[in-house]
């Protein structure tokens, strides 16, 4: 596999660090007046999600990690694996385990698009799109005409996720949610 020297480091680059695939988030070259030049790098471990900062000796090399992100459609789950299909026309399917799916599990919708990160062809992370439209399966009935109180109530979605919604929203309605914050955005435009 290719190697990258510190002076080639770029944000978004995928490297192998102590056996784990990591993404370079930020990189800065620093040369103290008399001492060893170094690169101050912020990294994200793509397996564990951990973000941390570390210095590297200027000129040091890291192995590139075979990490690719693919747009995929969620197909189904058998309880043990979650199956996704590539949307590039190949119809290739991959199976992601629970730890790879992680928080995205709350926002999966049949045929919904996700970004799946593959490391050596194995899924290690699934990221839901920023906004999803999901149906409410459980919530207290809304009071008719109650559009102005600004109060909220919890609503359970098909995925099991619970989101705070305005009081006038009812079961069966499809709402848009910001998956990054878990916040109700409005009724689905679809």
């Amino acid at each position, binding site marked *: 596999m290719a190697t990258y020297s*510190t*002076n080639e*480091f*770029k*944000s978004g680059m995928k490297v192998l660090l102590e056996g784990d695939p990591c993404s370079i988030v930020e*990189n*800065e*070259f*620093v*040369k*103290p*007046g*008399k*001492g*060893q*030049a*170094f*690169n*101050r790098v912020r990294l994200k471990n793509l397996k564990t999600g951990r973000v*941390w*900062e*570390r*210095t*590297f*000796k*200027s*000129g*040091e090399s890291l192995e590139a990690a075979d990490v690719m992100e693919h747009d995929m459609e969620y197909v189904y789950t058998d309880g043990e694996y979650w199956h996704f299909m590539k949307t590039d026309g190949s119809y290739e399917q991959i199976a992601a385990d629970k730890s790879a799916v992680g928080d995205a599990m709350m926002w999966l919708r049949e045929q919904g698009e996700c970004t799946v990160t593959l490391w050596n062809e194995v899924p290690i992370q699934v990221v839901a799109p920023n906004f999803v439209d999901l149906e409410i399966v459980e919530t207290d009935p809304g009071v008719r005409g109650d559009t102005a109180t600004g109060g909220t109530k919890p609503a359970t979605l098909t995925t099991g996720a619970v989101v705070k919604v305005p009081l006038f929203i009812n079961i069966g309605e499809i709402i848009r949610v910001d998956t990054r914050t878990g916040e109700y955005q409005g009724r689905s435009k679809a």
Partner: protein
Amino acid sequence: MIPTWDTLKKRARVLSDMRSALAFRGYIEVQTPVLGRYGVFDPHLHSIEVSTFRGTRYLQTSPEYALKQVLGRAPERIYQIGPVFRGNDVGPRHQPEFTMLEWYAPDTSLTALIEEFIDLLAGLTDAPDEWREGLAVEHHDYGELMQSFAGINPHQTTERALEAHLDAYDVEISHLAGPRDEQWRSDALDFIFSTQVQSHLEGLCTVSGFPGSQAALAEIEPTTGLAQRTELYASGIELMNAYQELRDPDELDTRWKKASEARSRRGMSQMALDVGLRDAMALMPVCAGAAVGFDRLLMCMLGLDRLDEVMILPWQDG
């Protein structure tokens, strides 16, 4: 990338003012080659190699070796303004090619040389108000700064204490791995200085009292073991290095040997000692000398943040 025309005009004016000011103080401009037979032996300065019809040559990291050979022949006040090259990487304050202003003053003490330069800066048309006459420049002691801001006595601290200190950083420090020699100690101290002390240096100020291990080609004061080296900072940015220049060829040999061993331990190539420099050292007058990153100086004078704002077609950051 091209700086604004206003910046380019100011750059030209500062250069012109600088030359007038140096001439007024009796300095004669000389020009030495950028391609030399020898690279620099400092383990942390990277001399870029060039392949020529006569074999490998090195782009000079500073005109020091050549200017000292001039001094060996003519003990006069000389200066040079020209391009220097340091391989490595690009950053907001670092460019592989930059402009160095370097000068030597025989029979002038280090203190007098620095006062003279601060006085020179105050007289430049484009000098910021804070640098003008009447403003006191603070003179700091390295040991005291390290004690105040890092809680370390750099002259007495142990390797273990330094390691513990580095462990306490938020950032995981892995660039200081390697053999625990005198070079390592100097590198660790320098890292701590640059990360914990430097940002606290306000306005125009000097720092002296560096350990002998950081003397480079400066004399080492025999009773204290400290380097006769002074640095000038502007708002925490290192602008100038000034030395009471070393004149002992045997001591040069010793330092070259230590540096070569440090290079070897780190898997770095060996750099032969410049024989011309060695011969000249025995003939050099007692003198103080200094070097300033001209682009950085200009950057600070104009209140800008990055070197590429004052340089034409600089190397791009990452």
